């Protein structure tokens, strides 16, 4: 009964989405008030029905209704409750339902927060989101209904994939989707502005907070995925340049470019057409990401069970979205007049360079990700592109980005002077060099140019952030100036510091990590980077729905035990796959990491992976700071004021100021 109610609400939601996608659009075109007004009620009803369908699936999971095929495949009576709830999005059907729910949620949020936006614009935005939702709901109902029943009814479910039974991964998809789907908002604003033929600063101001929120969620989502892979895959790695990871990283890069160019469009009226294009591309890449992950055409660590037939639908949907939006862009964008960038030394030019670097990076990653697929499709042989490719193009493209980022805190709009910038920034540059050279030399085991380079860049972002806040608040009452500085400035500063923390993390981890794969019998010692790992043997333990062999490893420093690591090799009762659970002692300066390999012939020895990972936490800490910075900037009071109250007169825009 409940599953049928779920299917029924999905169909009702589809009908609402169709209404939401058509009438307001036509109404805006013909200036028909009541049709435009339909946007509100259609959006809310759609949210209610998708929410109801989602609730039905959750209830069916909690009540172990194995007559529903999706639940039988992804659940089990022994499964802990938290994984029954997260099991809803463990597979393809449920994660699409989550997609649809989040899309309906963003639509509701946009509807609720945009009373200051002219009705015609609002109707178009909601309608475009309705059209996207129509596509997704059609996809769910036609090819992947999570409520499909099966007969005979199995007595026990097939269990949740053991890899997904981890708190980090349980929250990874919703957060990632909040980001992916969130890019539908700037996309919808972009399409609406193109339809109306009005691409102005107001358009950029409306899109900015939404873009920042979506981008921040995507940042956290990607970081969570990386953190999970580190904990759960047992290889000690945090990023594999795996096609599925790239699929989430490309929209992030474009989103980063978008966040910056929106600022330039809002403040200075430059790059209008380019900014819209970025909004279209960011969302298209989010869809491409969904397509790549779900179509089964990729060889990847993430390649869970897939169905190529569904890929065809997503491909058609993707071509429609990309084709129509780019078509509209080609038709409307040429008439847009942007203000020209007046000087090469200005904040606008800096943002331009930032955008170029980010887009070239995206293009090279796209090339490496799609090249094997294209070769295969053309019958030119099966190939794979290795991680060294991505590393060798990524670093040279992003290092200049971090260098330029430092000047962002002080450079002015419109026109600035190199002399002034040098004068302000030279102390920061010197400090970064001194700390960058001294830190790795004094604290680390051996010389490494990578470490010096990374730490210099990292300290540079921090030093310039301090200089930025200092110079912004100098003159007059500093405390009052600090308080009056908009939160978007603080958000930017924090996010930029996050990039530095991230860079230091990558540099030190890749320069000084030590890895050993060894054979150890109980009582054996291994010395790694000054830490003595002693293997004390393996005991059997029992979890809620698994049995495990738990290795006991004592880590000694200078003869004294400092930590006890307990990596596990778990066997889940239903799926019988062995699963590695790493034993990690996390620290701000270093992680000690052990994972159990396999028992060896003599029955006493085990294969073990031992790692010392300096500063690896800084990678996720940096990502977290970036995301928090984005959220702080998105909550800037400026965006919440109704458009009429804060009228940006041209004079405030043309004064060379350090706004963002």
């Amino acid at each position: 009964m409940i599953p049928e109610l779920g299917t029924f609400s999905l169909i009702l939601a589809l009908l609402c989405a169709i209404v939401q996608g058509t009438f307001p659009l036509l109404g805006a075109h013909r200036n028909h008030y009541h049709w435009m007004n339909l946007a509100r009620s259609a959006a809310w009803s759609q949210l209610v029905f998708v929410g109801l369908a989602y609730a039905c699936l959750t209830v069916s999971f909690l009540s172990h209704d194995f007559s529903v095929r999706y639940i039988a495949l992804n659940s089990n009576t022994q499964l802990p409750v938290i994984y029954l709830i997260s099991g809803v999005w463990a597979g393809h059907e449920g994660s699409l339902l989550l997609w649809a729910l989040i899309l309906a949620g963003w639509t509701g949020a946009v509807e609720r927060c945009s009373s200051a936006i002219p009705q015609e614009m609002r109707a178009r935005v909601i309608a475009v989101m309705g059209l996207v939702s129509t596509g997704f709901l059609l996809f769910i109902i036609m090819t992947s209904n999570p409520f499909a029943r099966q007969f005979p009814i199995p007595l026990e479910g097939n269990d949740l994939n053991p890899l997904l039974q981890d708190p980090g991964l349980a929250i990874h998809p919703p957060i990632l989707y909040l980001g992916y789907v969130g890019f539908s908002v700037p996309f919808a604003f972009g399409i609406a502005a193109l339809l109306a033929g009005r691409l102005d600063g107001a358009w950029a101001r409306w899109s900015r907070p939404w873009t920042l929120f979506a981008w921040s969620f995507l940042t956290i989502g990607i970081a969570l995925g990386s953190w999970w892979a580190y904990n759960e895959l047992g290889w000690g790695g945090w990023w594999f340049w795996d096609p599925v990871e790239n699929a989430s990283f490309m929209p992030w890069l474009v989103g980063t470019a978008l966040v910056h160019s929106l600022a330039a469009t809002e403040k200075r009226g430059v790059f209008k057409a380019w900014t819209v294009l970025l909004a279209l591309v960011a969302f298209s890449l989010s869809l491409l990401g969904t397509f790549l992950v779900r179509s089964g055409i990729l060889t990847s660590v993430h390649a869970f069970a897939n169905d190529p037939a569904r890929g065809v639908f997503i491909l058609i949907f993707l071509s429609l979205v990309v084709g129509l939006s780019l078509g509209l862009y080609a038709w409307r964008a040429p008439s847009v007049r942007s203000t020209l960038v007046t000087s090469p030394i200005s904040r606008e030019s800096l943002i331009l360079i930032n955008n170029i670097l980010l887009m070239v990076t995206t293009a090279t990653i796209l090339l490496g990700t799609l090249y094997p697929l294209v070769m295969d499709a053309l019958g030119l042989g099966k190939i794979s592109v290795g991680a060294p490719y991505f590393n060798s193009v990524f670093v040279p493209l992003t290092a200049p980005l971090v260098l330029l980022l430092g000047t962002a805190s002080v450079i002015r709009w419109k026109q600035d002077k190199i002399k002034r910038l040098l004068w302000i920034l030279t102390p920061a540059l010197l400090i970064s060099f001194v700390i960058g050279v001294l830190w790795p030399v004094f604290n680390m085991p051996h010389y490494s140019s990578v470490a010096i380079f990374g730490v210099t860049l990292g300290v540079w972002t921090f030093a310039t952030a301090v200089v930025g806040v200092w110079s912004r608040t100098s003159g007059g009452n500093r405390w009052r100036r600090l308080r009056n500085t908009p939160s978007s400035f603080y958000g930017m500063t924090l996010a930029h510091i996050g990039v530095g923390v991230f860079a230091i993390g990558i540099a030190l981890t890749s320069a000084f990590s030590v890895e050993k794969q060894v054979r150890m019998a109980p009582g054996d010692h291994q010395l790694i980077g000054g830490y003595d790992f002693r293997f004390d043997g393996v005991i059997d333990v029992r979890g809620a729905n698994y049995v495990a062999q738990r290795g006991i490893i004592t880590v000694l420093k200078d003869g004294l035990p400092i930590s006890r690591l307990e990596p596990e090799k778990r066997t889940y009762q239903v799926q019988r796959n062995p699963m590695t659970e790493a034993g990690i002692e996390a620290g701000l300066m270093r992680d000690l990491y052990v994972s159990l390999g396999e028992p060896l012939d003599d029955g006493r020895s085990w294969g073990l992976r031992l790692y010392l990972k300096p500063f690896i936490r800084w990678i996720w800490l940096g990502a977290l700071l970036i995301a928090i910075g984005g959220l702080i900037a998105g909550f800037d009071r400026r965006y919440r004021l109704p458009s009429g109250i804060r009228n940006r007169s041209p004079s405030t825009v043309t004064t060379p100021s350090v706004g963002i």
Partner: protein
Amino acid sequence: MVGLIVVGCTIATGLALLALRENINLFFSPSQIVDGTAPSNTTIRLGGMVVSGSIQRGENLGVTFVLTDLAEQVTVAYEGILPDLFREGQGIVTQGKLDSSGRFFAEQVLAKHDETYMPPEVNDALRKVMEVGQ
């Protein structure tokens, strides 16, 4: 300004293509190794099914096993810990180099996290053998 951008992009594209060419790994099946299609002393990928009873542990973490596409067999040598889902009858992909005597030395062994999953490359190679056999 525009000129600088164009020059920069050209250099970036050139470097990217160069890096791409150096880091492409071709995929081969055991049949292609045996008939000599696969180059030796270059990093390539080799995929197939692990032959039952062929896994042999050696000194330390050394291990050898035999991969098959149901037509030909190739012995693979590897030093290190095998992935969780590595087992007999499982389809796997390895990355490494072929020496001149026809032994394959793997630097990486990849097995997927799903017991019913067969890597697409291995699947295709198996299907090709089946088609020839019919």
